[in-house]
């Protein structure tokens, strides 16, 4: 006898219980604490904050713990939480030229005011597994130097003096908000940058890499990459002036790209821009490359039909929460639509067979 499948509710509850058990792992092993994740898996925390669009290392660490280290799942938890938070207002633009830099490098000048500061980078580590870490992770304190007290100027400012790089005029126009208004295409640069900074690191990296390999090639020099803390200021109407409401860590990348020129304009360097929460170097460089590729129209370049030049393509597919949701929804039941296709294919096959069968056989 056939019994219709029932009991979805119990099955779901049991699945959740099992999941919780798997998340905890073997109970004779110490449980991870949120602070351990925040302090020792900092780059994962940064990625979750960047793509979750919420600067809160503790919540990001909690999300990583809850998601068993699945970062896209963690980003999803943060996004779903973020969307319920009330909006008190908007901060003033952060002043990255006043950043207290932990790292600041330029690939275009051997030295410049502020110097080259390597900071805590993997760059020159030899990628050899450090088996000592398997036993114990205690390290001696790193040497320190006097921190620079004066602000570190942007490298592009020096080029601007010579008028040899395209200017980015300041604007007081309030940019659109990707999270509050539906994306309408064609979009504009502020919205593109919002989309890229919260876009999937892998996707943005792949897009950027494609431009390096010749799909809308536009050779980029890393004019500057800086990582450090900036103050967040907000105007408080009751006070009539701006106050510091906190401090966030950012990675900023400015690329210096090929010059363009025309009969009327002398050749000039152009720029791409990346700005990401936390120490997120790969992401911010990739973002700058994709930003630059998407500016083809504004800078009077040809549309080469490359994916990274295609705003609609890039913006529609950069968000990993949208992508993973839609990808994984095909796990859901589709009995009904499948059934309708089944009937249709059977019917078409029947009709095709009738056509193929010799006429005389029917007579």
């Amino acid at each position, binding site marked *: 006898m056939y019994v219709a499948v029932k009991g*979805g509710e119990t099955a779901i509850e049991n699945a959740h219980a099992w999941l919780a058990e798997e998340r905890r792992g073997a109970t004779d092993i110490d449980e991870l604490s949120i602070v351990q994740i925040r302090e020792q898996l900092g780059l994962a925390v940064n990625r979750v904050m960047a793509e979750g669009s919420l600067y809160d290392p503790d919540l990001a660490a909690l999300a990583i713990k809850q998601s068993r280290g699945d970062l896209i799942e963690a980003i999803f938890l943060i996004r779903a939480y973020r969307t319920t938070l009330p909006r008190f207002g908007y901060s003033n633009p952060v002043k990255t030229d006043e950043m207290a830099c932990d790292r600041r490098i330029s690939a275009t000048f051997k030295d410049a005011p502020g110097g080259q500061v390597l900071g805590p980078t993997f760059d020159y580590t030899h990628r050899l597994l450090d088996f000592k870490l398997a036993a114990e992770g205690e390290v001696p304190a790193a040497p320190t130097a006097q921190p620079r007290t004066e602000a570190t100027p942007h490298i592009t400012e020096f080029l601007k003096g010579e008028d040899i790089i395209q200017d980015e005029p300041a604007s007081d126009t309030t940019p659109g908000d990707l999270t509050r208004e*539906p994306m*309408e295409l064609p979009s504009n640069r502020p919205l593109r940058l919002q989309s890229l900074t919260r876009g999937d690191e892998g996707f943005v990296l792949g897009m950027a890499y494609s431009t390096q390999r010749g799909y809308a090639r536009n050779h980029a020099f890393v004019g500057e990459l800086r990582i450090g803390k900036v103050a967040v200021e907000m105007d408080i109407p009751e006070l009539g002036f701006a106050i510091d409401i906190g401090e966030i860590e950012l990675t900023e990348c400015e690329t210096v790209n090929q010059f363009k020129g025309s009969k009327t304009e002398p050749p000039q360097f152009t720029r791409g821009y990346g700005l990401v929460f936390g120490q997120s170097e790969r992401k911010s460089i990739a973002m700058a490359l994709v930003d630059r590729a998407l500016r083809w129209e504004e800078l009077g370049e040809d549309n080469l039909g490359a994916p990274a030049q295609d705003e609609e393509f890039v913006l529609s597919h950069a968000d990993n929460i949208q992508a993973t*949701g839609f990808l994984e929804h095909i796990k859901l039941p589709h*009995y009904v639509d499948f059934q309708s296709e089944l009937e249709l294919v059977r*019917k078409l096959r029947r009709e095709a067979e009738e056509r193929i069968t010799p006429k005389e056989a029917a007579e």
Partner: protein
Amino acid sequence: MNEYNFAYLDEQTKRMIRRAILKGLAVPGYQVPFASREMPMPYGWGTGGVQVSAATLTPEDTFKVIDQGADDTTNAVSIRKFFENTAGVETTEETEKATVIQTRHRIPEAKLRKDQIIVYQVPIPEPLRFLEPRETETRKMHSLEEYGLMHVKLYEDISQHGAISTAYAYPVKVSDRYVMDPSPIPKFDNPKLEMDAIQLFGAGREQRIYAVPPHTKVVSLDFEDYPFEATKADHPCDLCGAEDSYLDEVIMDDAGNRMFVCSDTDYCRSRREAGHKGRLAEENAA
């Protein structure tokens, strides 16, 4: 879950969604962009429908959720539970008793009334999407009422297969103006799209809401010599004997024997309770 507002979304967001719904009702079949929120369930799993339901529900409503026509499919269970927790509304499996019905892929068999609202979950709201991937292009095509591409597609189907080879999400023209995707319902359900109830469609990931007001003309696209046909498996339901309901095919054993059962579980149950019996109905089966 008292830490969240009624039906989860804050009132500002609900107001924004209600505006989109009203605009959708005023321009039947037109896709209204809305600032879809991240919901605590994944995109593609009914976030559009959930947001529309959240903006539609009142504390007095009785809510029903179906997926594939059934109340007990896992995602329907999950969404029903979400609103039980966040809105505390009464829920039901009976189509009759529901005032708001959220659905994925089906329209209930029972005729809906004017005091009911049906909310469809929509994956890809753009009927022209698989003919033209660019939103900038398809919006232009809608505004110019430029639907030639769709007719060419249907014509190509006929020349290749001898029939229109779209079995679900079969495109319709609403109120003689907009071509609309009715969501992936089987084309068997298309004739029901002209109904007494309000029909709302929500696509969360794609940030679109659209609507069909009661008694609006909804025509499935076809050709005079190849008219639209609402098809289903050519069997009666093996449990309740219904000949007029959409059927799921179930594989019963290793020999590949099949049975056919109503996809609308509430319809099937109510018929069996009224004493109807199908080929494989057990004497005591409820």
